[in-house]
């Protein structure tokens, strides 16, 4: 008779379903399909899809690549810590390294141009959280993620670390300039 007793109808799987329930099941099913197709649609026609280009890497390999990139492309240094500002060359390849507790180096990009930004961490998990535009990507040690980014508007952007990475987590702030 109720949900805490065995079904009163022994052959409960043979009792018909009411029209109202069928309609709601139908609606729920169709809405699920719409949401499913929407993700696929966005891969075809949307302009914001996370890249699938990923390589296995190591701390040493990724550090070396980033250092080579910084050496070749540094245009100036900033702050007391002399953090290099790197402006990627015409090919648009850039490296961004996450470590305890900094994003290295500072990047200087141009609006409307597409860049291939190689993202990885050399120690713990970190979170790439670009503000104020609000794009959030997980950064995992051992994985080099090549994300294609096209800045839309000039400005000064901050990279907040939004994956907990220890006691200095809150001071891990990076910068991207878009000219």
């Amino acid at each position, binding site marked *: 008779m109720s*949900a805490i007793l065995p079904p009163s109808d022994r052959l409960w799987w043979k009792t018909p379903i009411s029209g109202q329930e069928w309609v709601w099941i139908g609606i729920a099913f169709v809405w699920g399909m719409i949401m499913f197709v929407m993700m696929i649609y966005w891969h075809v026609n949307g302009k914001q899809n996370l890249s699938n280009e990923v390589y296995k890497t190591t701390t040493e390999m990724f550090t070396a690549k980033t250092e080579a990139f910084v050496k070749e492309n540094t245009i100036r240094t900033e702050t007391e*810590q002399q953090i290099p500002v790197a402006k990627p060359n015409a090919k648009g390849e850039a490296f961004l390294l996450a470590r305890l507790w900094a994003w290295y180096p500072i990047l200087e990009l141009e609006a409307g141009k597409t860049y291939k930004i190689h993202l990885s961490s050399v120690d713990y998990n970190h979170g790439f959280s670009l503000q104020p535009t609000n794009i959030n990507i997980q950064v995992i040690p051992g994985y080099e993620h090549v994300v294609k980014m096209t800045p839309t508007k000039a400005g000064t952007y901050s990279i907040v670390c939004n994956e907990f990475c220890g006691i200095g987590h809150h001071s891990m702030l990076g910068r991207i300039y878009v000219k």
Partner: protein
Amino acid sequence: MAQYRTCPRTGLQFELEADKLMRWNAVAGVLWLLVGGITALLVILTRWPAIKLLPADQFYMILTVHGVDMLIFWIIFFEIAVLYFASSTLLRCRLATPKVAWAAFWLMVVGSIMTNVAIFQGESSVMFTSYVPMMAAPHFYLGIILFAVGALIGCGVFFGTLVVARRDKTYTGSIPLVTFGALTAAIIAVFTILAGAGILLPTLLWSVGLIKEVDAQLYRMVWWALGHSSQQINVAAHVSIWYLIAAVVFGAKPLSEKVSRFAFLLYILFLQLASAHHLLSDPGMSAEWKVLNTSYFMYFAVMASMIHGFTVPGAIEAAQRKKGLTNGLFEWLRKAPWGNPVFSGMFISLVSFGFLGGISGVVLGTEQINMLMHNTFYVPGHFHTTVVTGTTLAFMAVTYLLVPTLFRREMMFPKLCQIQPYLFGISMSVLGLVMMGAGTLGVSRRHWDMAFSGAPFQYEWPGAAYLMMGLTGIFGVIAVIGGGLWIFLVVWSLLFGKKLDGGPVSDKPTPIPDQSLAAHASGTGSHDHVSVPGTVVLAMTLLVCFVLYYFVNWKYLSEVWGLS
């Protein structure tokens, strides 16, 4: 020799050993809820920018305690009690192997204390998720493993009890819907715990130096088969409790046994895939993998929740209409017992879980939209409206029922009992909303300082983000008061409440009468469908909110930088 008592007020039959196990498991859960609640207050007061109570190291330690004690220890202890109730009590049989059930209980006690000790020693502030290669002390992992083994044994006792009931023929036909839902929860729990063992065992070995490395991406994938799936145990458990409360308070009967059971079956088939929800912005998985898994294979588990969201209020409406409350669309709801905390808690849980937790969860779990919210304050905002206003509030509501019948004590301070579900449910729902608001503006979760002190640069969050965080503080404190009130009411009633008669004890269980005969006698077959127009309106309102909010987020996404 098993002994049984029949509660004179509810007619529920308790086997005495199961009775004691349920009480001890529930009380252990409540004690962890107390620790979780105190740490919740400290977390809130630190994230409230105007107060910022704790220093960074203590904040991360306390946040780890809060996550682990609430999401694992409180909930799973209580769920073990629910499993024993749904099997031994509802099927009126003895509990299989009570000695083993006690061993499971003590394993869980030892494990949960061990992990808490590890965290409070200060070397294991690694958050609930403990992502490698950040390392905790070995006994942090060992405690969780022991607890999980205990919980797994508890599930085994539950399965065994189902077998006992069938063999002893204490019921005829199929198991009740609530027991079926609990069975769903237990099956998901087995999967979850095995996944947890699969990753925490190697991590334990790594922490003592026996394994060189655990891959950081692999860890995330397998760990979330524990972390997210364990929340799916909660969904199955609290949906079962919704049905239970609807049955006890209204005598409500499922609109259709077939539909409700099929929806539970969809949970078993598809909820496991939820691990993907945490990996949508990760490098290691392909877009195809993400799309298929995050949608629970084309949203079949979401469909299941939408079905329960319809059939639970639908069952209540049908029961109320049969009693003659047939005026207009909502007389059945207006004249529901809003002063009964069992019902009010359950209904707030249903609405908050559906409108806030459900919708935000699906939006957050959309592959591309996830990039707007991944690791922001939106994420805890979402799960405080699923695990807290959904599961915890449902557990609180059912406790108002269990204290008199299981613990045989009268609830004290009935006026406060009436207020508590509203105080806790509404403040926690608003808390979830403002947390999601802050997350939409980009504010990070698990972050000690919005002002980034010590950073080489400055970043100023928008003023609205500070406003949202201030509101988070205010409503968080109110929610802690509401939760604390519940603990006070329950503990006070258990200690000082009027003792109630437990009912006559007998050596033999009284089997459940054959329901098909009873139904035949009273002439209420299952073919009499009652129209539930009020529920249809509620469900359509949910759908409209869902669709609008879903597409608004695609609009937000289209405005950020191009990514490919």
